[in-house]
Protein backbone atom coordinates (compact mmCIF):
# COMPACT_ATOMS: atom_id res chain seq x y z
CA UNK A 1 0.00 0.00 0.00
CA UNK A 2 2.73 2.45 0.94
CA UNK A 3 4.57 1.43 -2.21
CA UNK A 4 1.48 2.03 -4.35
CA UNK A 5 1.30 5.42 -2.67
CA UNK A 6 4.96 6.14 -3.53
CA UNK A 7 4.33 5.38 -7.21
CA UNK A 8 1.11 7.39 -7.10
CA UNK A 9 2.81 10.42 -5.57
CA UNK A 10 5.61 10.38 -8.11
CA UNK A 11 3.32 10.02 -11.10
CA UNK A 12 0.85 12.62 -9.90
CA UNK A 13 3.60 15.13 -9.13
CA UNK A 14 5.20 14.51 -12.50
CA UNK A 15 2.07 15.80 -14.28
CA UNK A 16 2.68 19.11 -12.58
CA UNK A 17 6.47 19.09 -12.99
CA UNK A 18 6.00 20.30 -16.53
CA UNK A 19 3.67 22.95 -17.94
CA UNK A 20 1.74 20.20 -19.75
CA UNK A 21 -0.76 19.74 -16.90
CA UNK A 22 -1.70 23.42 -16.90
CA UNK A 23 -1.94 23.59 -20.68
CA UNK A 24 -4.00 20.42 -20.66
CA UNK A 25 -6.47 21.71 -18.10
CA UNK A 26 -6.82 25.10 -19.75
CA UNK A 27 -7.49 23.57 -23.15
CA UNK A 28 -9.86 20.96 -21.73
CA UNK A 29 -11.88 23.47 -19.79
CA UNK A 30 -11.82 26.05 -22.58
CA UNK A 31 -12.95 23.58 -25.21
CA UNK A 32 -15.63 21.98 -23.02
CA UNK A 33 -16.94 25.36 -21.95
CA UNK A 34 -17.02 26.79 -25.44
CA UNK A 35 -18.70 23.77 -27.03
CA UNK A 36 -21.23 23.64 -24.20
CA UNK A 37 -22.20 27.30 -24.03
CA UNK A 38 -22.37 27.60 -27.82
CA UNK A 39 -25.47 25.41 -27.76
CA UNK A 40 -26.60 26.31 -24.25
CA UNK A 41 -27.77 29.83 -25.04
CA UNK A 42 -29.46 28.73 -28.27
CA UNK A 43 -31.58 26.13 -26.50
CA UNK A 44 -32.11 28.38 -23.51
CA UNK A 45 -32.59 25.52 -21.09
CA UNK A 46 -30.77 25.27 -17.74
CA UNK A 47 -29.53 21.73 -18.24
CA UNK A 48 -26.11 20.16 -18.51
CA UNK A 49 -27.27 17.23 -20.56
CA UNK A 50 -25.50 18.42 -23.70
CA UNK A 51 -22.30 18.85 -21.70
CA UNK A 52 -22.36 15.25 -20.51
CA UNK A 53 -23.17 14.10 -24.03
CA UNK A 54 -20.08 15.95 -25.20
CA UNK A 55 -17.76 14.75 -22.47
CA UNK A 56 -16.96 11.20 -23.78
CA UNK A 57 -15.90 12.71 -27.10
CA UNK A 58 -13.54 15.08 -25.34
CA UNK A 59 -12.25 12.23 -23.20
CA UNK A 60 -11.59 10.25 -26.37
CA UNK A 61 -8.65 12.58 -27.02
CA UNK A 62 -7.88 13.93 -23.58
CA UNK A 63 -7.65 10.60 -21.74
CA UNK A 64 -5.01 9.06 -24.06
CA UNK A 65 -3.03 12.27 -23.58
CA UNK A 66 -3.02 11.56 -19.84
CA UNK A 67 -2.05 7.90 -20.12
CA UNK A 68 0.27 7.80 -23.13
CA UNK A 69 3.48 8.50 -21.25
CA UNK A 70 2.83 6.43 -18.14
CA UNK A 71 4.59 3.26 -19.34
CA UNK A 72 5.96 4.29 -22.73
CA UNK A 73 8.24 6.91 -21.23
CA UNK A 74 9.58 4.55 -18.57
CA UNK A 75 10.53 2.12 -21.29
CA UNK A 76 12.11 4.76 -23.48
CA UNK A 77 14.19 6.38 -20.75
CA UNK A 78 15.07 3.03 -19.18
CA UNK A 79 13.56 3.77 -15.77
CA UNK A 80 11.37 0.70 -16.29
CA UNK A 81 14.41 -1.28 -15.22
CA UNK A 82 14.59 0.72 -12.00
CA UNK A 83 10.90 0.50 -11.19
CA UNK A 84 10.80 -3.23 -11.87
CA UNK A 85 13.79 -3.89 -9.61
CA UNK A 86 12.43 -1.82 -6.73
CA UNK A 87 10.55 -3.94 -4.20
CA UNK A 88 7.12 -3.24 -5.72
CA UNK A 89 4.85 -5.88 -7.15
CA UNK A 90 3.64 -5.39 -10.71
CA UNK A 91 0.10 -4.90 -9.38
CA UNK A 92 1.24 -2.14 -7.02
CA UNK A 93 3.03 -0.35 -9.85
CA UNK A 94 0.00 -0.59 -12.15
CA UNK A 95 -2.35 0.61 -9.40
CA UNK A 96 -0.10 3.53 -8.49
CA UNK A 97 -0.01 4.70 -12.07
CA UNK A 98 -3.72 4.17 -12.64
CA UNK A 99 -4.67 6.06 -9.47
CA UNK A 100 -2.37 8.94 -10.39
CA UNK A 101 -3.96 9.32 -13.83
CA UNK A 102 -7.39 8.94 -12.22
CA UNK A 103 -6.63 11.68 -9.70
CA UNK A 104 -5.49 13.93 -12.53
CA UNK A 105 -8.72 13.26 -14.42
CA UNK A 106 -10.72 13.99 -11.26
CA UNK A 107 -9.04 17.37 -10.97
CA UNK A 108 -9.94 18.13 -14.59
CA UNK A 109 -13.54 17.01 -14.09
CA UNK A 110 -13.64 18.93 -10.83
CA UNK A 111 -12.67 22.14 -12.62
CA UNK A 112 -15.70 21.74 -14.89
CA UNK A 113 -17.91 22.29 -11.83
CA UNK A 114 -17.47 25.94 -12.77
CA UNK A 115 -19.84 25.24 -15.66
CA UNK A 116 -22.39 23.72 -13.29
CA UNK A 117 -22.21 26.79 -11.09
CA UNK A 118 -22.82 29.07 -14.09
CA UNK A 119 -25.80 26.96 -15.16
CA UNK A 120 -27.20 26.98 -11.62
CA UNK A 121 -26.82 30.76 -11.48
CA UNK A 122 -28.72 31.18 -14.73
CA UNK A 123 -31.62 28.82 -14.07
CA UNK A 124 -32.86 25.85 -12.13
CA UNK A 125 -31.09 22.72 -13.35
CA UNK A 126 -32.02 19.26 -12.06
CA UNK A 127 -29.38 18.46 -9.40
CA UNK A 128 -30.03 14.71 -9.75
CA UNK A 129 -29.21 14.86 -13.42
CA UNK A 130 -26.01 16.79 -12.85
CA UNK A 131 -24.95 14.41 -10.10
CA UNK A 132 -25.66 11.41 -12.35
CA UNK A 133 -23.78 13.09 -15.15
CA UNK A 134 -20.68 13.48 -13.00
CA UNK A 135 -20.86 9.91 -11.74
CA UNK A 136 -21.12 8.73 -15.35
CA UNK A 137 -18.24 10.94 -16.44
CA UNK A 138 -16.00 9.62 -13.66
CA UNK A 139 -16.87 6.00 -14.47
CA UNK A 140 -16.42 6.26 -18.22
CA UNK A 141 -13.26 8.30 -17.67
CA UNK A 142 -11.85 5.55 -15.45
CA UNK A 143 -12.66 2.95 -18.10
CA UNK A 144 -10.96 5.02 -20.80
CA UNK A 145 -7.91 5.49 -18.53
CA UNK A 146 -7.54 1.75 -17.93
CA UNK A 147 -7.57 1.11 -21.69
CA UNK A 148 -5.08 3.90 -22.37
CA UNK A 149 -2.77 2.76 -19.58
CA UNK A 150 -2.78 -0.81 -20.86
CA UNK A 151 -1.93 0.31 -24.39
CA UNK A 152 0.89 2.52 -23.10
CA UNK A 153 2.47 -0.63 -21.63
CA UNK A 154 2.68 -2.21 -25.08
CA UNK A 155 4.96 0.35 -26.72
CA UNK A 156 7.83 2.65 -25.94
CA UNK A 157 6.57 5.31 -28.31
CA UNK A 158 4.19 7.84 -26.75
CA UNK A 159 2.70 8.91 -30.08
CA UNK A 160 1.91 5.30 -30.97
CA UNK A 161 0.39 4.83 -27.52
CA UNK A 162 -1.77 7.93 -28.04
CA UNK A 163 -3.08 7.00 -31.48
CA UNK A 164 -3.73 3.34 -30.71
CA UNK A 165 -5.50 4.35 -27.48
CA UNK A 166 -7.77 6.79 -29.31
CA UNK A 167 -8.71 4.08 -31.82
CA UNK A 168 -9.25 1.39 -29.15
CA UNK A 169 -11.32 3.65 -26.93
CA UNK A 170 -13.36 4.78 -29.93
CA UNK A 171 -14.11 1.18 -30.89
CA UNK A 172 -15.18 0.27 -27.36
CA UNK A 173 -17.22 3.43 -27.06
CA UNK A 174 -19.31 3.00 -30.22
CA UNK A 175 -19.64 -0.77 -29.86
CA UNK A 176 -23.09 -0.51 -28.29
CA UNK A 177 -24.26 2.35 -30.52
CA UNK A 178 -27.54 1.83 -32.40
CA UNK A 179 -25.77 2.60 -35.64
CA UNK A 180 -23.30 -0.24 -35.07
CA UNK A 181 -25.95 -2.65 -33.80
CA UNK A 182 -27.90 -2.25 -37.05
CA UNK A 183 -24.90 -3.44 -39.03
CA UNK A 184 -24.10 -6.61 -37.06
CA UNK A 185 -25.89 -10.00 -37.09
CA UNK A 186 -28.84 -10.19 -34.73
CA UNK A 187 -27.39 -12.83 -32.45
CA UNK A 188 -24.29 -10.77 -31.63
CA UNK A 189 -26.08 -7.45 -31.17
CA UNK A 190 -26.92 -7.97 -27.46
CA UNK A 191 -23.26 -8.77 -26.75
CA UNK A 192 -22.13 -5.59 -28.48
CA UNK A 193 -24.76 -3.55 -26.76
CA UNK A 194 -23.65 -4.92 -23.39
CA UNK A 195 -19.93 -4.39 -24.03
CA UNK A 196 -20.17 -0.92 -25.52
CA UNK A 197 -18.91 1.76 -23.16
CA UNK A 198 -21.33 4.33 -24.56
CA UNK A 199 -24.60 2.49 -23.99
CA UNK A 200 -24.08 2.29 -20.24
CA UNK A 201 -23.11 5.93 -20.10
CA UNK A 202 -26.35 7.22 -21.59
CA UNK A 203 -28.56 5.92 -18.83
CA UNK A 204 -26.30 7.14 -16.03
CA UNK A 205 -25.93 10.61 -17.47
CA UNK A 206 -29.70 10.83 -17.64
CA UNK A 207 -29.59 10.52 -13.86
CA UNK A 208 -30.49 6.85 -13.66
CA UNK A 209 -27.74 5.31 -11.56
CA UNK A 210 -28.07 1.56 -11.92
CA UNK A 211 -25.72 -0.72 -9.97
CA UNK A 212 -25.39 -2.92 -13.06
CA UNK A 213 -23.85 -0.03 -14.98
CA UNK A 214 -21.49 0.73 -12.12
CA UNK A 215 -20.45 -2.91 -11.89
CA UNK A 216 -19.98 -2.96 -15.65
CA UNK A 217 -17.55 -0.01 -15.59
CA UNK A 218 -15.66 -1.36 -12.60
CA UNK A 219 -15.28 -4.69 -14.43
CA UNK A 220 -13.92 -2.96 -17.52
CA UNK A 221 -11.39 -1.09 -15.37
CA UNK A 222 -10.46 -4.29 -13.53
CA UNK A 223 -10.11 -6.23 -16.77
CA UNK A 224 -7.74 -3.77 -18.42
CA UNK A 225 -5.67 -3.28 -15.26
CA UNK A 226 -5.35 -7.06 -15.09
CA UNK A 227 -4.20 -7.16 -18.73
CA UNK A 228 -1.75 -4.41 -17.87
CA UNK A 229 -0.21 -6.43 -15.03
CA UNK A 230 0.03 -9.45 -17.33
CA UNK A 231 1.65 -7.49 -20.14
CA UNK A 232 4.35 -6.33 -17.74
CA UNK A 233 4.91 -9.79 -16.31
CA UNK A 234 5.25 -11.27 -19.78
CA UNK A 235 8.20 -9.03 -20.55
CA UNK A 236 10.21 -10.18 -17.56
Amino acid at each position, binding site marked *: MSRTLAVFK*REFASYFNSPIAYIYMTVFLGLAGWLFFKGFFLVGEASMRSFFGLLPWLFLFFVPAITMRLWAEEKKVG*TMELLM*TFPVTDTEAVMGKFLASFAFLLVSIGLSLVLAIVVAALGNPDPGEIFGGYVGAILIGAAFLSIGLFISSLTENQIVAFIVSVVAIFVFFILGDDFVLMGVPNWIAPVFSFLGLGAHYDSISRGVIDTRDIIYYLSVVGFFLYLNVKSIQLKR
Partner: protein
Amino acid sequence: MISVKNLTKTFGRTVAVNNISFEVNRGEVLGFLGPNGAGKTTTMRMLTCYLMPDSGTATVAGYDIVDDSLEVRKRVGYLPENAPLYLDMDVVSYLEFVADIRGIPSNEKLRRIKRMVEICGLGSVAGRTVGQLSKGFKQRVGLAQTLIHDPEILILDEPTTGLDPSQIIEIRELIKEIGKERTVILSTHILPEVEATCSRVLIINEGEIAASGTPEELHSVAGGEDSFYVAIKTQDAQVEEKLRRIAAVREVKKLADLEEGYTRYLLKSKDGGSVGEQIFKAAVENGWMINELHRETLSLEDIFLKLTTKEKSE
Protein backbone atom coordinates in the same frame (compact mmCIF):
# COMPACT_ATOMS: atom_id res chain seq x y z
CA MET B 1 25.72 -14.24 -0.55
CA ILE B 2 25.01 -14.88 -4.20
CA SER B 3 24.83 -18.34 -5.63
CA VAL B 4 24.05 -18.94 -9.28
CA LYS B 5 23.34 -22.37 -10.73
CA ASN B 6 23.01 -23.13 -14.44
CA LEU B 7 21.33 -19.85 -15.25
CA THR B 8 20.15 -19.61 -18.86
CA LYS B 9 18.31 -16.90 -20.76
CA THR B 10 17.46 -16.78 -24.44
CA PHE B 11 15.91 -14.03 -26.50
CA GLY B 12 14.32 -15.58 -29.55
CA ARG B 13 17.12 -17.61 -31.07
CA THR B 14 20.02 -15.84 -29.39
CA VAL B 15 21.29 -17.42 -26.24
CA ALA B 16 22.26 -14.42 -24.11
CA VAL B 17 23.37 -16.37 -21.04
CA ASN B 18 24.19 -20.02 -21.35
CA ASN B 19 24.29 -22.23 -18.29
CA ILE B 20 26.27 -19.92 -16.01
CA SER B 21 27.16 -20.95 -12.46
CA PHE B 22 29.17 -19.03 -9.89
CA GLU B 23 29.27 -17.92 -6.27
CA VAL B 24 30.03 -14.61 -4.61
CA ASN B 25 30.85 -14.27 -0.93
CA ARG B 26 30.34 -11.42 1.50
CA GLY B 27 33.02 -8.78 1.25
CA GLU B 28 33.93 -9.72 -2.27
CA VAL B 29 33.94 -7.36 -5.22
CA LEU B 30 33.32 -9.48 -8.29
CA GLY B 31 34.02 -8.01 -11.71
CA PHE B 32 32.14 -9.13 -14.78
CA LEU B 33 34.40 -8.69 -17.72
CA GLY B 34 33.50 -9.30 -21.31
CA PRO B 35 33.02 -7.76 -24.73
CA ASN B 36 29.75 -5.98 -25.52
CA GLY B 37 26.87 -8.41 -25.87
CA ALA B 38 28.62 -11.10 -23.85
CA GLY B 39 25.73 -11.51 -21.42
CA LYS B 40 26.92 -9.38 -18.51
CA THR B 41 23.86 -7.15 -18.40
CA THR B 42 21.44 -10.04 -18.90
CA THR B 43 23.00 -11.90 -15.98
CA MET B 44 22.70 -8.83 -13.78
CA ARG B 45 19.12 -8.27 -14.86
CA MET B 46 18.25 -11.80 -13.79
CA LEU B 47 19.96 -11.39 -10.41
CA THR B 48 18.02 -8.17 -9.79
CA CYS B 49 14.73 -9.81 -10.81
CA TYR B 50 14.19 -7.58 -13.84
CA LEU B 51 14.26 -10.61 -16.13
CA MET B 52 13.16 -14.15 -15.34
CA PRO B 53 15.62 -16.91 -16.20
CA ASP B 54 14.51 -19.53 -18.73
CA SER B 55 16.13 -22.23 -16.64
CA GLY B 56 18.47 -22.57 -13.70
CA THR B 57 18.24 -20.94 -10.31
CA ALA B 58 19.98 -18.30 -8.29
CA THR B 59 19.74 -17.21 -4.70
CA VAL B 60 20.63 -13.71 -3.58
CA ALA B 61 21.10 -13.14 0.16
CA GLY B 62 19.50 -16.54 0.68
CA TYR B 63 16.34 -15.82 -1.33
CA ASP B 64 15.37 -17.34 -4.65
CA ILE B 65 15.24 -14.79 -7.47
CA VAL B 66 11.99 -16.22 -8.84
CA ASP B 67 10.06 -17.38 -5.76
CA ASP B 68 11.13 -14.63 -3.35
CA SER B 69 11.75 -11.88 -5.85
CA LEU B 70 10.44 -9.14 -3.55
CA GLU B 71 12.79 -10.18 -0.71
CA VAL B 72 15.70 -10.19 -3.13
CA ARG B 73 14.83 -6.75 -4.46
CA LYS B 74 14.65 -5.35 -0.91
CA ARG B 75 18.25 -6.41 -0.25
CA VAL B 76 19.83 -5.40 -3.52
CA GLY B 77 20.93 -1.99 -4.72
CA TYR B 78 20.98 -1.94 -8.50
CA LEU B 79 22.45 0.61 -10.85
CA PRO B 80 21.39 -0.24 -14.40
CA GLU B 81 23.56 0.58 -17.39
CA ASN B 82 23.64 4.33 -18.16
CA ALA B 83 21.98 5.05 -14.80
CA PRO B 84 18.41 5.73 -15.95
CA LEU B 85 16.63 8.27 -13.72
CA TYR B 86 13.32 10.08 -13.57
CA LEU B 87 14.49 13.17 -15.36
CA ASP B 88 11.62 15.47 -14.40
CA MET B 89 12.27 15.28 -10.65
CA ASP B 90 14.75 17.25 -8.61
CA VAL B 91 17.54 15.33 -6.88
CA VAL B 92 16.10 15.41 -3.38
CA SER B 93 12.54 14.48 -4.32
CA TYR B 94 13.92 11.69 -6.48
CA LEU B 95 15.83 10.28 -3.51
CA GLU B 96 12.71 10.75 -1.41
CA PHE B 97 10.72 8.71 -3.90
CA VAL B 98 13.29 5.91 -3.79
CA ALA B 99 13.25 6.02 0.01
CA ASP B 100 9.44 5.78 -0.01
CA ILE B 101 9.32 2.90 -2.44
CA ARG B 102 12.05 1.16 -0.45
CA GLY B 103 9.90 1.50 2.66
CA ILE B 104 12.35 3.59 4.67
CA PRO B 105 10.44 4.96 7.69
CA SER B 106 9.70 8.66 7.44
CA ASN B 107 11.61 9.61 10.60
CA GLU B 108 14.78 8.18 9.09
CA LYS B 109 14.22 9.35 5.53
CA LEU B 110 15.74 12.79 5.85
CA ARG B 111 18.84 11.51 7.61
CA ARG B 112 19.45 8.91 4.91
CA ILE B 113 18.95 11.39 2.09
CA LYS B 114 21.37 13.82 3.76
CA ARG B 115 23.93 11.06 4.11
CA MET B 116 23.59 10.04 0.47
CA VAL B 117 23.95 13.63 -0.67
CA GLU B 118 27.11 13.85 1.42
CA ILE B 119 28.65 10.50 0.38
CA CYS B 120 27.95 10.96 -3.30
CA GLY B 121 28.93 14.63 -3.37
CA LEU B 122 25.54 15.93 -4.46
CA GLY B 123 25.42 18.96 -2.17
CA SER B 124 25.82 21.51 -4.94
CA VAL B 125 23.03 20.06 -7.10
CA ALA B 126 20.52 18.89 -4.47
CA GLY B 127 17.77 21.20 -5.67
CA ARG B 128 18.40 20.85 -9.41
CA THR B 129 16.27 18.86 -11.83
CA VAL B 130 17.85 15.50 -12.58
CA GLY B 131 17.45 15.93 -16.34
CA GLN B 132 19.66 19.03 -16.32
CA LEU B 133 22.60 17.40 -14.56
CA SER B 134 25.83 16.40 -16.25
CA LYS B 135 26.55 12.75 -16.92
CA GLY B 136 28.85 12.53 -13.90
CA PHE B 137 26.27 13.90 -11.50
CA LYS B 138 23.55 11.68 -12.95
CA GLN B 139 25.79 8.69 -12.30
CA ARG B 140 26.25 9.85 -8.72
CA VAL B 141 22.51 10.29 -8.24
CA GLY B 142 22.15 6.76 -9.56
CA LEU B 143 24.72 5.54 -7.06
CA ALA B 144 22.97 7.39 -4.23
CA GLN B 145 19.77 5.67 -5.25
CA THR B 146 21.39 2.23 -5.04
CA LEU B 147 22.84 2.91 -1.58
CA ILE B 148 20.01 4.69 0.17
CA HIS B 149 18.52 1.59 1.82
CA ASP B 150 21.93 0.35 2.95
CA PRO B 151 21.75 -2.84 0.87
CA GLU B 152 23.73 -6.00 1.59
CA ILE B 153 24.34 -6.50 -2.09
CA LEU B 154 25.22 -4.04 -4.80
CA ILE B 155 24.93 -4.78 -8.49
CA LEU B 156 26.40 -2.09 -10.70
CA ASP B 157 26.27 -2.24 -14.47
CA GLU B 158 29.19 -0.26 -15.89
CA PRO B 159 29.25 2.24 -13.04
CA THR B 160 31.98 4.44 -14.47
CA THR B 161 30.97 4.92 -18.11
CA GLY B 162 30.83 8.51 -19.21
CA LEU B 163 32.75 9.87 -16.25
CA ASP B 164 35.92 11.93 -16.46
CA PRO B 165 39.16 10.42 -15.12
CA SER B 166 39.03 12.05 -11.70
CA GLN B 167 35.39 11.06 -11.23
CA ILE B 168 36.25 7.51 -12.24
CA ILE B 169 38.89 7.35 -9.53
CA GLU B 170 36.44 8.76 -6.98
CA ILE B 171 33.71 6.28 -7.87
CA ARG B 172 36.19 3.39 -7.79
CA GLU B 173 37.37 4.41 -4.34
CA LEU B 174 33.75 4.64 -3.24
CA ILE B 175 32.99 1.15 -4.57
CA LYS B 176 36.07 -0.27 -2.86
CA GLU B 177 35.07 1.35 0.42
CA ILE B 178 31.50 0.08 0.14
CA GLY B 179 32.70 -3.36 -0.91
CA LYS B 180 34.49 -3.95 2.37
CA GLU B 181 31.44 -5.06 4.28
CA ARG B 182 29.10 -5.76 1.40
CA THR B 183 28.93 -7.91 -1.67
CA VAL B 184 29.43 -6.14 -4.94
CA ILE B 185 29.09 -7.28 -8.53
CA LEU B 186 30.13 -4.79 -11.16
CA SER B 187 30.45 -5.13 -14.87
CA THR B 188 32.84 -3.31 -17.08
CA HIS B 189 34.82 -3.59 -20.23
CA ILE B 190 37.50 -1.28 -18.96
CA LEU B 191 40.25 -3.64 -17.88
CA PRO B 192 42.28 -1.46 -15.52
CA GLU B 193 39.05 -0.91 -13.62
CA VAL B 194 38.88 -4.58 -12.74
CA GLU B 195 42.46 -4.57 -11.52
CA ALA B 196 41.78 -1.46 -9.47
CA THR B 197 38.56 -2.52 -7.76
CA CYS B 198 37.82 -6.23 -7.97
CA SER B 199 38.97 -9.03 -5.74
CA ARG B 200 37.75 -11.58 -8.23
CA VAL B 201 37.06 -11.57 -11.95
CA LEU B 202 34.66 -13.48 -14.13
CA ILE B 203 35.37 -13.27 -17.82
CA ILE B 204 32.17 -13.81 -19.76
CA ASN B 205 32.11 -14.41 -23.47
CA GLU B 206 29.18 -15.32 -25.67
CA GLY B 207 27.01 -16.12 -22.68
CA GLU B 208 29.49 -18.44 -21.02
CA ILE B 209 32.16 -18.10 -18.37
CA ALA B 210 35.50 -18.11 -20.13
CA ALA B 211 37.58 -17.83 -16.97
CA SER B 212 37.29 -16.90 -13.34
CA GLY B 213 39.64 -16.18 -10.47
CA THR B 214 41.68 -13.44 -8.90
CA PRO B 215 43.56 -11.26 -11.38
CA GLU B 216 46.76 -13.19 -10.40
CA GLU B 217 45.13 -16.56 -10.97
CA LEU B 218 43.94 -15.51 -14.38
CA HIS B 219 47.48 -14.54 -15.16
CA SER B 220 48.70 -18.10 -14.72
CA VAL B 221 45.63 -19.58 -16.42
CA ALA B 222 46.53 -17.70 -19.55
CA GLY B 223 50.06 -19.15 -19.40
CA GLY B 224 51.50 -15.94 -18.06
CA GLU B 225 54.63 -14.87 -19.82
CA ASP B 226 56.77 -11.87 -18.98
CA SER B 227 58.46 -9.65 -21.48
CA PHE B 228 61.80 -7.94 -20.80
CA TYR B 229 62.95 -5.00 -22.88
CA VAL B 230 66.65 -4.28 -22.76
CA ALA B 231 68.78 -1.80 -24.71
CA ILE B 232 72.46 -2.78 -24.98
CA LYS B 233 75.56 -1.08 -26.47
CA THR B 234 78.47 -3.34 -27.22
CA GLN B 235 80.89 -4.52 -29.93
CA ASP B 236 80.17 -8.10 -28.88
CA ALA B 237 78.75 -10.02 -31.89
CA GLN B 238 77.34 -12.75 -29.74
CA VAL B 239 74.92 -10.67 -27.67
CA GLU B 240 71.84 -12.50 -28.82
CA GLU B 241 73.52 -15.84 -28.28
CA LYS B 242 74.53 -14.91 -24.74
CA LEU B 243 71.12 -13.53 -23.87
CA ARG B 244 69.50 -16.72 -25.05
CA ARG B 245 71.69 -18.70 -22.69
CA ILE B 246 70.09 -17.09 -19.65
CA ALA B 247 68.21 -19.90 -17.91
CA ALA B 248 64.51 -19.16 -18.24
CA VAL B 249 64.53 -17.20 -21.48
CA ARG B 250 62.45 -18.77 -24.20
CA GLU B 251 62.87 -16.31 -27.00
CA VAL B 252 65.10 -13.37 -27.88
CA LYS B 253 64.22 -10.88 -30.55
CA LYS B 254 66.16 -7.93 -31.84
CA LEU B 255 63.71 -5.07 -31.98
CA ALA B 256 65.43 -1.93 -33.20
CA ASP B 257 68.73 -0.10 -33.46
CA LEU B 258 68.59 2.99 -31.30
CA GLU B 259 70.71 6.15 -31.21
CA GLU B 260 74.27 6.13 -29.88
CA GLY B 261 74.89 2.50 -30.80
CA TYR B 262 72.29 0.95 -28.54
CA THR B 263 70.16 -1.95 -29.73
CA ARG B 264 66.88 -2.97 -28.12
CA TYR B 265 66.07 -6.62 -27.54
CA LEU B 266 62.93 -8.32 -26.38
CA LEU B 267 63.26 -11.38 -24.15
CA LYS B 268 60.31 -13.59 -23.37
CA SER B 269 60.26 -15.77 -20.30
CA LYS B 270 57.71 -17.98 -18.59
CA ASP B 271 59.44 -17.81 -15.25
CA GLY B 272 60.24 -14.16 -14.99
CA GLY B 273 61.56 -14.15 -11.43
CA SER B 274 65.28 -13.64 -11.84
CA VAL B 275 65.63 -12.91 -15.52
CA GLY B 276 66.25 -9.23 -14.88
CA GLU B 277 69.09 -9.98 -12.48
CA GLN B 278 70.65 -12.40 -14.92
CA ILE B 279 70.54 -9.90 -17.75
CA PHE B 280 72.30 -7.44 -15.50
CA LYS B 281 74.93 -10.04 -14.52
CA ALA B 282 75.54 -10.98 -18.14
CA ALA B 283 76.01 -7.32 -18.99
CA VAL B 284 78.56 -6.87 -16.21
CA GLU B 285 80.48 -10.01 -17.16
CA ASN B 286 80.65 -9.09 -20.82
CA GLY B 287 81.14 -5.37 -20.32
CA TRP B 288 77.91 -4.35 -22.12
CA MET B 289 76.41 -0.93 -21.56
CA ILE B 290 72.72 -0.89 -20.59
CA ASN B 291 70.52 2.19 -20.67
CA GLU B 292 67.14 0.54 -20.57
CA LEU B 293 65.74 -2.51 -18.80
CA HIS B 294 62.15 -3.05 -17.96
CA ARG B 295 59.73 -5.85 -17.37
CA GLU B 296 56.15 -6.18 -18.54
CA THR B 297 53.87 -8.79 -17.06
CA LEU B 298 51.03 -10.07 -19.15
CA SER B 299 48.23 -7.59 -18.51
CA LEU B 300 44.61 -8.49 -17.93
CA GLU B 301 44.07 -7.01 -21.33
CA ASP B 302 46.21 -9.68 -22.98
CA ILE B 303 44.57 -12.41 -20.94
CA PHE B 304 41.17 -11.10 -21.87
CA LEU B 305 41.97 -10.99 -25.57
CA LYS B 306 43.58 -14.40 -25.43
CA LEU B 307 40.58 -15.99 -23.74
CA THR B 308 37.87 -14.30 -25.73
CA THR B 309 39.47 -14.87 -29.12
CA LYS B 310 40.42 -18.44 -28.33
CA GLU B 311 36.78 -19.16 -27.64
CA LYS B 312 35.79 -17.81 -31.00
CA SER B 313 38.30 -19.72 -33.07
CA GLU B 314 37.38 -23.06 -31.58
